[in-house]
Structures are given as C-alpha cells and as structure tokens.
C-alpha cells in the first residue's frame, strides 16, 4: 500500500452514484475518523447529513452505506464485521444491519473504510472492487439468481474463490421488507429491509478482493492485546468461552426455553413443549459436521450442517442458529428441526432475514389461527400451528411476492397488519415496525427496555445486555453509578442508566467493528480494551471517557435522524401485548411488563441521554457533543427538546 498517513483506517470513502454510473474516491477526514470512529458511527453521520426528511426509502436519494471500522482486518478479536445503513424501509427511521464473515476485512485490504451508494441504476449492475479498481459492471446475467448462485458465478467469472461477495437474492430484488444482504453465502446484514433498498437501486452485488492492505501503528501491542484479551475471556468467562465455541447460538433454544422466554406460537407463550427437539442434542448428534467462524473469530459459533438422509437429504447450510430454530420452530409451533435447518438455508439463498421473515410468518400464523386471515388470504394454505409442511412454500411466496400471502407478508407485519386492521395489529409483535431478537421482554425485562429505545427499531443488539447478569453490584456501582442495576429480577430506574451505558459500549463494537459476543463478564472487556485497541491500531490516543463522548454523540445523531423523520416518545414503547397479557405458561408464568415502571425508565433514560421528556434532543446536549448544526436544524423544524 502507499503511505497515505493513516493507521487502522484505510483512509478512503468510496462514493458510488448508480444513476450516473460513477465511482469516486473521497479521502477520509481526521475529524470524521476521530469524532465518529468508523462503522456504524460513520454510517449514521453520513445518513443524517445526506438523507433529508421526505426521502423515499426506495427512491434515488436514499443511501446504502457499507461501513467497516478501524480494527476491521487487523488481528483484534472478532474483527470481521461491518455495518450496512440506510433509511429504513421498515421503520421509516434510521436502519442498519451488521454482518460478519470476511467482507469487511476485504474492503479494508482493498483500501476502503466505507462504501456509500446512492441513486438508481437504469439496469442491474454489480460493483466490482479489486484494490484500486472499483467499477460498476453489468449484472443482467445475475438478476433473478439466488445469493448462492450469484456468489458462485462471480467467483467463477473472476477466477477468484478468495473474493468476498455481498449480494441480494430474489427477496431483495422483489423489494420484500424482510430481505437481507448476504455475504459469503450465509452471513447476513439484516433488518430495515436493507436487501430491498439494494434491490430498488438495481445493485445486485458487491464483489471485493483486496491485497493492498492497511497499516497498524503498534503491531506489537495489537498482537499482545489480542493474546491478552483471549486469555482474559478464557479465564473470566471460562464456561462461556468453552460452551459457546462448542454449540454457538442454538444453545439458547434450550436456555431461553428453560427461562420461559422462548417465543412460542408467535409471541403468545414463552415455553415450547417440543423445544428439546429443536435444541442442541438432536442438532449436534445428527446434523452439525463442523463449526465455522467469521474474520478473526475467537470462538467459531457458526454450525455448518448437512442432512444425510430422509426427505431433505443433501441440504447443507451454515450459520443456522437460534433465530432459525425459534423463528421457524417454536414461533410457528413447528417441532421439525430439519424443516428449520432447510428454512434457514432457503433464507440465505433467497436473501431473507430469519428474524424479519419469521416475524411476518408468526404474525400471519396467529391471525390465521384466530380466524382473522382466511384461506383466501393464504392462497389456500393451512397455517395451523405446527403445520410444518408449508413453511418452505411460504418462504418462497414471501421471497417472490407470490399470491395474496406473498404480497401481504412482503410488507412486514406492521404494514400488513395495518392493511388488515383490527386485532391483526395487536398480533404484530414489533417496535417501530421492526422485530427484535427472540427473547421475550416479559421475562428479560431490562433487555426489553433496550428493545424499546433502540434507534433502529426493535432490536436486542443495540444493548446486548449480558453485563446485567455478569457484573457484580460493586462493578455496577462503579460503571453505571447504581448497584441496583445488577438485580436482574427487579426492574428499577437503574436499568435506564444501565441501558444507556450498554448502548454506549455496544456502539464501540459497532464502530471498531467487532462482534458483540466478545464482551461479556469482565468490565475490562468493555472499558479498557476498546481504547487500548484503537490506540494501538490507529496511533491516535483514545481514552475511555473520550469514547463515551463519541458514543453519546452517535446515539444522539441517530436519535435526531429519527426525530427528524417524525419519531418521538410514542415510538419507544413495546408491543401492546407485553404490557397487557401476562405470560400464560412456563417458568415466566404471570410476568408482564409494568407500563408505569416502563414510563419511569423512559423518563430517566431521556434525562441521562440529554433528551427532553418527549425524547427530543436538547440544544445544550447537542452543543456539548459538537452537534450545533443539528440543534439549529431541529430548532428550525420545531423539533428541538425543551431545556429543563
């Protein structure tokens, strides 16, 4: 590589205009790098600055941004991640999806921190990147192909099996809300309808291979801190380190079912009588042949499976995880593990998000079983709980928008429910229209609050609140300022402080671009290593406090984006059912979310975030974070928060 003065960051943003058919390189600025770090930080800032209110998510002015972080492609643990951001087709606000694999590192090695795509191409194209070469190429031969075929064809055409391909399948092409962008066959950037946005732009794929490389400032400390970190996790989280490496996320089927938080028959119940048929015992005895990992992974949580006999003989897949077993299993009352596995692979091929696809399906199943949807709506299909013979057919209908059912589900459950009206809306289990990870908030209450305030709509990963049960009261006192935050069975206002803090440290995962599973029980994993890594990788001295400011800044930029799109406090509540219906069965029996307490949490959360009681950012807070221009704009729009 040429010495462009950057360490960690590649130093270049790639600007793609599909309408004009141009690809330009823009130098990264120091202010951008230091104030927003990278990944989701860059993406959200660019989105706020360039996507104005009134933009049609599917129009030429919406952006699709692929962002890596400064540690992507180094050897920092689990560095293989990147964020795709856009104006969400699902929530109408900020949307992003995060994926793993090797696509992020490849982008960096080719010399790009971020790829910003705008416009709409007159014909299908793909973006070909090989180091300095970055150009749009005809993709008419790829349009209509699924993700796996597309990936195979590009690798074959370019005679390079080491390249990384990020592509959409039929779901994205057909502008399905549940669509994802898939890289390396089975890694998904999902949520927000990112695949549909890419499809609306007629961008079929991005293929990237890079050897130009990046530089790190202090190679010795980059290496030493990596080894130290692995030692820390292996020592302080021994059980996790060993068990998660062995089983990956499917182990949560057994765990959440035991806790009574496994969504069952849509989200009616939290315990599934056949959970053991979907859990790790059958999965690992019969199907999983090996484990795979994303770039720089210190675990390898991704089970690679092959079905050797029976009706699904020959099916393979990867990354089939918790959300497939609960999404196509317990949520639909299906106890056939093979159906779930194949459904997962079908999603990967069609370019569908497990969570969003099964969200729409769970909703439809419940509506059908409650008599709201009839066979006319379902094209004659019987959506009875447990009828697993039609799950794959429904997925195909969803991806291709086939028939009445396909067209309805393609909207996502909130919009579909609005169309049907009445009780159907009650069964749409979304927040801001987006569904979160499958852990029932009536049982994991603080997680639930995190779902509510997440800037991308219902989402468990903005907080990924494991520190709630890992930190001691003393540690909570030290970092959160309130020891009560460690009491996982009692919801107190301390949880608002906890959620704010966790959102901040989780933002560091999304901006350095590391996997969230690396931070667990040790506070050092959240507060010490991120700044140490950044300093070693980039040569710019970072501190814990400084990074907290960056996180506060980006969270407020994201909030401001949503506020500008018309969101406020009313959008931060959970689905009605969780306040109204107590959990009917299982170990979570009787639990529901206390609305009064939830309101108190919101009050407290807005206060510590520097937003007013309606959730609008205040000028004082914005200016403190160097966001005067946002304060001015919000004031003009009469959306500025009231100072106390």
């Amino acid at each position, binding site marked *: *590589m040429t010495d462009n003065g950057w360490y960690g960051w590649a130093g270049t943003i790639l600007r793609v205009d599909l309408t004009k058919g141009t690809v330009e390189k823009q130098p990264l600025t120091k202010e951008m790098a230091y104030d927003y770090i990278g990944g989701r930080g860059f993406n959200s800032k660019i989105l706020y600055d360039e996507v104005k209110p009134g933009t049609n998510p599917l129009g030429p002015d919406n952006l699709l941004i692929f962002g890596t972080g400064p540690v992507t492609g180094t050897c920092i643990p689990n560095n293989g991640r990147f964020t795709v951001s856009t104006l969400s087709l699902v929530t109408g606000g900020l949307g992003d999806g995060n994926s793993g694999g090797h696509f992020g590192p490849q982008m960096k090695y080719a010399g790009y921190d971020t790829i910003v795509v705008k416009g709409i191409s007159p014909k299908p194209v793909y973006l070909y990147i090989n180091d300095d070469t970055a150009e749009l190429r005809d993709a008419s031969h790829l349009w209509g192909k699924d993700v796996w075929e597309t990936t195979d064809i590009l690798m074959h055409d370019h005679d390079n099996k080491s390249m990384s391909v990020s592509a959409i399948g039929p779901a994205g092409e057909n502008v399905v809300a549940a669509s994802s962008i898939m890289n390396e066959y089975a890694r998904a950037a999902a949520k927000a309808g990112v695949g549909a946005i890419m499809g609306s732009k007629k961008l079929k794929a991005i293929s990237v291979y890079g050897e130009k490389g990046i530089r790190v400032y202090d*190679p010795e400390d980059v290496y030493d801190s990596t080894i130290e970190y692995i030692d820390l996790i292996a020592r302080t989280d021994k059980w996790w380190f060993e068990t998660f490496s062995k089983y990956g996320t499917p182990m949560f089927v057994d765990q959440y079912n035991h806790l009574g938080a496994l969504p069952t028959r849509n989200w009616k119940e939290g315990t599934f009588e056949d959970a053991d048929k979907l859990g790790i015992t059958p999965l690992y005895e019969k199907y999983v042949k090996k484990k795979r990992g994303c770039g720089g992974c210190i675990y390898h949580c991704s089970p690679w499976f092959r079905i050797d006999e029976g009706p699904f003989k020959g099916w393979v897949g990867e990354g089939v995880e918790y959300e497939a077993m609960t999404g196509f299993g317990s949520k639909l009352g299906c106890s056939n593990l093979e159906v779930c596995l194949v459904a997962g692979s079908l999603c990967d091929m069609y370019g569908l998000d497990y969570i969003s696809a099964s969200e729409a399906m769970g909703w439809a199943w419940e509506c059908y079983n409650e008599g709201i949807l009839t066979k006319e709506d379902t094209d004659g299909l019987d959506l009875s709980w447990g009828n697993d013979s039609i799950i794959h057919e429904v997925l195909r209908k969803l991806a291709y928008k086939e028939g009445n059912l396909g067209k309805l589900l393609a909207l996502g459950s909130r919009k579909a429910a609005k169309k049907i009206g009445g009780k159907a809306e009650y069964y749409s289990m979304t927040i801001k229209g987006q569904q979160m990870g499958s852990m029932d908030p009536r049982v994991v209450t603080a997680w639930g609050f995190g779902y509510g305030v997440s800037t991308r709509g219902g989402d468990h990963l903005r907080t990924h609140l494991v520190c709630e049960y890992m930190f001691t009261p003393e540690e909570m006192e030290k970092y959160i300022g309130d020891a009560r935050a460690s009491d996982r069975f009692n919801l107190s206002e301390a949880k608002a402080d906890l959620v704010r803090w966790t959102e901040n440290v989780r933002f560091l995962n999304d901006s350095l671009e590391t996997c969230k599973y690396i931070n667990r029980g040790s506070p050092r994993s959240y507060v010490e290593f991120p700044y140490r890594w950044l300093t070693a990788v980039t040569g710019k001295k970072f501190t814990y406090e400084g990074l907290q400011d960056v996180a506060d800044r980006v969270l407020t930029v994201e909030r401001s984006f949503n506020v500008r799109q018309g969101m406020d406090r009313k959008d931060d509540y959970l689905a009605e059912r969780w306040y109204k219906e107590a959990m009917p069965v299982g170990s979570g029996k009787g639990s529901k979310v206390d609305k009064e307490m939830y309101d108190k949490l919101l009050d407290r959360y807005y206060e510590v975030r520097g937003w007013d009681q309606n959730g609008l950012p205040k000028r004082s807070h914005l200016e403190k974070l160097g966001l005067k221009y946002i304060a001015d704009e919000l004031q003009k729009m009469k959306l500025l928060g009231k100072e106390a």
Partner: protein
Amino acid sequence: MTEKYYIEIDYIDCCGCKLCEQVCAVTRGGGVVSPGTARIRVEVRPTLGVDIPLVCQHCEDPPCYVCPHGAMFIDNKGVVIIDAEKCIGCKQCVDMCPFGAIQIHPVTRKAIKCDLCGGKPKCVEVCRKAHPPGVLRYVKVSNAGKYSRDRWADRLEKQIVAAMNSPEAARLEKHAKAADDLKMAAEKGDVA
C-alpha cells in the same frame, strides 16, 4: 541431529476465521496488513464447509529450492528460509512451491515465506489460545501424524468397545469349544 519442527494442520476442524493469517500479517507483514503479506493463508469454501490453511511445510527436499542468487537456505534446524537481502524478486521459488506457500510482498516485491518465527510461531499461539487445542500445532517432525492418530484412535476406541458388546461379538463364544478342540489336537500330536 537437532530436532526438526513444522506446523501441523488439522484440516478437519479449521473454522476459517483467518486469525492466523491476520496475526502473521500484523506482526510479520513488514508494515502492511494484507493477505498478501501473510506467510500463512487460509482458503475458505463456505458451501462445502471446508477451510484450508496453507503454509510452508519445510519440506525435506524443497521443490522451491531453486534460488539463482543464494537467497534461500536451510538452517541447522531444517527451517527453509529466504534471506530478504539477497532475494532478487525473480519469483521462481513462488512458482515452484506446490502449495503456494511463498508470496511476493506487495511493497518490497521480494519473496516472503514462513520461517516459523524463530521457533515460536505466532499463528500457532493465537490458534491454540482461541480454539484450544488449536488446529495449527507446532510439532516435532518425528511426531508428525501423532495428533491425528490419537484423535482417530479415540474415536475408534468407542466404536470398538461398542462392537465388542454387540451381538456379533457372540462369535467369541465359539472359542468355548476351541479349548476342547485344542486338547483333541494335542492328543493327535498337533502341538508345538
């Protein structure tokens, strides 16, 4: 003779995370972090679930040993090394290695390859830490294959025990009569 070592690879269990490759590029990449500066590379084949680390095997009779300029040598521990000072960048060693384990550094344009980090290979260390016991192992050549043998024997062990308890093992009962047969034979003079 000094004991010779090499990096043994577990092709079945490698997860394809490329930590080894990244660590090599960071610490040994000559200031450039890229797959092109890593002396170990991992080929991934996601649809087959196959991940293949490729690194210098430090062959006993190295096909790459064609350097016209005396830049390649085998040290007293059997490690095949390229002297960057002497390398002229002709790439013939790269072409000769059947595993593609030698690369041309993108900046210096000289040939680079694994030199076992002077006896403490960092790729092995990080792999052992992250994925114990590690799919890369720094082993004595005299122990080549031992790990795979042990692992396979451990697997077979269970199956053999199971087979010994299965009804088929009833054939062992035939031996009850065998003792009588032996006595009869002995009477006939069939005895050693």
